[in-house]
């Protein structure tokens, strides 16, 4: 199997279309930030837009969509580990505060 599949890389047109989508998504991100109507769903919306931008760059500009799946494993494994550690730490720190708060409230009620 050839190590580099340049013929499988996206063409210039695809690169330009991806760039246009990235710009539109960035404008949407900033727009959502400034429009008060979106503040109720600000965090999930921004996270979703950011995830799409991340995926577009990794799949098309870093060629993971066309390259060996082993490269996806080398990148995706540590990325998944980093996300799991991040979520676990947030749960550990902020979960602790929530439980402490609930405990205080329960104690006051008793």
């Amino acid at each position: 199997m050839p190590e580099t599949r340049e013929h499988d890389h996206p063409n210039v047109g695809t690169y330009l279309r991806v760039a246009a989508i990235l710009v539109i998504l960035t404008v949407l991100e900033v727009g959502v930030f400034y429009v008060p109507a979106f503040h109720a769903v600000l965090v999930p919306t921004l996270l979703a837009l950011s995830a799409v931008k991340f995926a577009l760059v990794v799949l098309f500009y870093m060629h993971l969509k066309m390259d060996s799946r082993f490269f996806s494993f080398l990148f995706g494994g540590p990325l998944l580990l980093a996300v799991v550690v991040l979520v676990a730490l947030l749960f550990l720190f902020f979960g602790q505060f929530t439980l402490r708060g609930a405990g205080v409230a329960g104690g006051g009620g008793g």
Partner: protein
Amino acid sequence: MTHAAAVHHTSMGLDSRKMAFWAFIGSECLLFGSLISTYLIYKGKSVVGPYPHDILNIPFTSVSTFDLLMSSLMMVLALAAVQRGDLKWAKIWLFATAFLGILFLGGQVYEFSSFVREGLTLQTNLFGCTFFVLTGTHGAHVTVGVLWLLTLWVRALQGKLGPAQAVTVEISGLYWHFVDVVWIVIFTLVYLIQ
């Protein structure tokens, strides 16, 4: 040294340089994951100002984000030009990528210096400490990327960058795009979700 002699394949038939570089990028995910985790854990725990909403300049940073996204486009255009042996456009796109990287760094220097003038330093509060370490580490990566790109640009000027060196350019592109995706995450988590 011929191209055939320079390329080293693994037993899986993959280019060993690309494999090593993807492993490196994986380790970088863990580095930035730890820095972003630290920022988020200490978010909102500063007991003295300035606080993020007092100081972060979203319009300015949005322009910086656009700048870095466009540099990623320039990078893939440079790679495409090198792959088809178009040295003229390879030189143009490589220089454009490095130039946009330098612009981003200039913006970061301006941002950091304005924050220091407004009283936010590494020692001011938890926000200052975690913010400067996270974005400073990213800026250091951008600096390395710019130097790498300028090196490739000089090689292109010397006529030493042809289709045989496409993997070299592709690997530098992997690094540059990784720096871009890290900024995509930082822009959202640090600047937009305050």
